[in-house]
């Protein structure tokens, strides 16, 4: 097990290099130069009637900025330098406002993680019981309605539901039940008592949270149901019934416990989802989270920020895949990754 873990960890390294180099290359080969964008902003701000000298000056300033940012070097060299800094824990500075990338990310991380942790909790609390309940009487009316219901929810595009909520529930011409944007009310005061601050925050997070959770019920409840049904047809369940245990005990103690194994391993796969803010939801509801930061940075060609988010996300994805495999092996003694033993 230890050897296998080490082997998988080593194999992670080239994969991680591949992913980050790909992102690096795409951003540096793509049309649209951050330096040009930076200067275009300044020029638009009012330098009408530029003469030739001024243009030469501007070109020089551009070249200097490029050299300062290291953008004048070959892409593999730039990548190596970036990687070297990453290893030392330096994510560089934003091209847009020259703030340290890590500071920008830290500012946004809290709310995204908060939404995602709550979303995962709610998903498990709703979907697991749904899956259990429909597996007790497969193909009953409840089972069919439940399957259809979560399937419909799964098929509703998030950006549609989000826009409908904004239009119909958040002010506008219809109902004004929820705030359309941000995390705080207008008269927000940091000196409010805790319950009032929390109440205000969750009043703002309710709709974004709803949009985050509703699509995820289907996969988990279906997974739970399948897992329950698989275990229900096992011999040990027949034995449990044969020795006269009540149906309740059979379902809750014998079937359910074994069915939870795969559900736990899914959790590891959710690791990247934890910090990956939804670009769409955060854009619709103007939530200052990671997704919004990523989208704004992409639009501004703010390479260092985009690359940092890319690296973090792919690292957690790869780690999540590995942890899911390992968790499966740890929980289920029948699975072994050692060679020669099955």
């Amino acid at each position, binding site marked *: 097990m230890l050897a296998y873990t080490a082997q998988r960890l080593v194999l992670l390294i080239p994969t991680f290099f591949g992913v980050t180099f790909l992102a690096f290359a795409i951003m540096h080969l793509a049309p649209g130069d951050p330096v040009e964008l930076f200067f275009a902003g300044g020029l638009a701000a009012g330098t009408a009637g530029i003469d030739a000298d001024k243009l030469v000056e501007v070109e020089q300033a551009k070249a200097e900025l490029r050299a300062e940012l290291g953008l004048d070097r070959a892409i593999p060299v730039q990548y190596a330098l970036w990687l070297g800094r990453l290893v030392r824990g330096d994510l560089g500075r934003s091209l847009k406002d020259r703030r340290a990338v890590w500071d920008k990310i830290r500012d946004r991380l809290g709310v995204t993680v908060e939404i995602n942790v709550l979303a995962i909790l709610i998903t498990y609390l709703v979907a697991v019981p749904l899956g259990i309940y429909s597996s007790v009487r497969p193909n009953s009316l409840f089972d069919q309605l439940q399957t259809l219901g979560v399937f419909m929810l*799964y098929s509703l595009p998030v950006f*549609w539901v989000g826009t409908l909520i*904004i239009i119909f529930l958040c002010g506008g011409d219809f109902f004004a039940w929820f705030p359309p944007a941000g995390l705080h009310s207008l008269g927000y005061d940091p000196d409010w008592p805790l319950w009032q601050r929390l109440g205000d925050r969750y009043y703002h997070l309710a709709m974004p949270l709803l949009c985050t959770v509703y699509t995820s019920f289907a996969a988990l409840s279906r997974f739970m149901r399948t897992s329950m049904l698989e275990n229900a047809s096992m011999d040990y369940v027949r034995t449990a019934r044969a020795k006269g245990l009540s149906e309740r005990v059979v379902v809750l103690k014998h079937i359910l416990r074994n069915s939870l194994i795969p559900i736990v391993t899914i959790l590891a796969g959710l690791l990247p989802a934890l910090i990956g803010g939804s670009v769409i939801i955060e854009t619709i509801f103007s939530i200052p989270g990671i997704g919004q930061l990523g989208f704004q940075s992409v639009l501004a060609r703010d390479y260092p920020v985009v690359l940092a988010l890319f690296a973090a996300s*792919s690292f957690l994805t*790869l780690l999540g895949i590995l942890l899911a495999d390992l968790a499966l092996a740890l929980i289920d003694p029948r699975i072994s990754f050692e060679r020669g033993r099955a």
Partner: protein
Amino acid sequence: MTVRAGSSSYGANVWRELRRNARAMVGLLVVGVLAVLALAADFVASDKPYYLELDGQVYSPALLDYGVWLGLRRWPEPLLNADFAALAERADAVLWPPIPYRSTGVDITGDVFEAPSSKHLLGTDGLGRDVAAGMVHGIRISLTIGLVVVAIQASIGILLGGLAGYYGGWTDLVLSRLFEMMLGIPTFFLIITVAAIFPPSIYTIMVILGLTGWVGIARFIRAEFLKVRALEFVAAAQSLGASDSRVMLRHILPNAIAPVLVAMSFGVAGAILAESSLSFLGIGVPQHVVTWGSILAVARTNTFAWWLAVFPGFAIFLTVTAYNLLGDGLRDALDPRLEI
């Protein structure tokens, strides 16, 4: 898949299973209706009448439009660059399509942000374009994107997965790292990045979506090739002197291809959803192209225009659900134990 009478081929079995599945059949029906609407979009929503009687002459501008487009015909003098709505006023008889507008018919001076009415059944957008016409023509764009993207994904997935599974060894090791790399990429973020930094175009969207979504198919095909490669009939074909490519294409692939159909059906839904998400964020199709997602994007900033959100969103929902239901049904019909 052809179904011959009296035969009990694999295809016939699958079709029989599929027909029993009511939800899959609903999905198939919606997919079919959408395909017909996409093909007939120019006749369902057009600013050119089917039939126009003018000064004793009879024209069929809607049909003529095709002739002109193909370079076979020319517009007759009275219709050249004509405003058909104005011509119809003084025509003796006229028959309009059900939606008498073009999807791109800009009308800034007139009906901007009109709510649904008898004139514009589903309202108009900020440039005065008819939403109903935009939605009908949007089917074309959505389906084209869905099908092209899935074709790219399936080609790459089958090729790389097949090579990895058939040759094994180093080929497999290298390609498997590539697959793992693709899994490790935050796909939607990558798509957004590429879509945002390249000039907006439908073709860019197709290429990005096609190049990012193939890894599921590749991994599946690899596993199937690994399994089938070890069977006797492959050894038989090889010992008869069949070339590697012949063994792969004629002997192994037909045994592994059916479940790819399931992945492709889900893939169409995913591609349509991805395109409309990008257009919704304003980094998908160019401004002048009307798609479901781009109509919805206008509603995001003009929250009073509920009709710009409700109708195109429902179209996306309907299409995505139909392809998902079809994929679900196909999976159950092919092999209920399959996990895709």
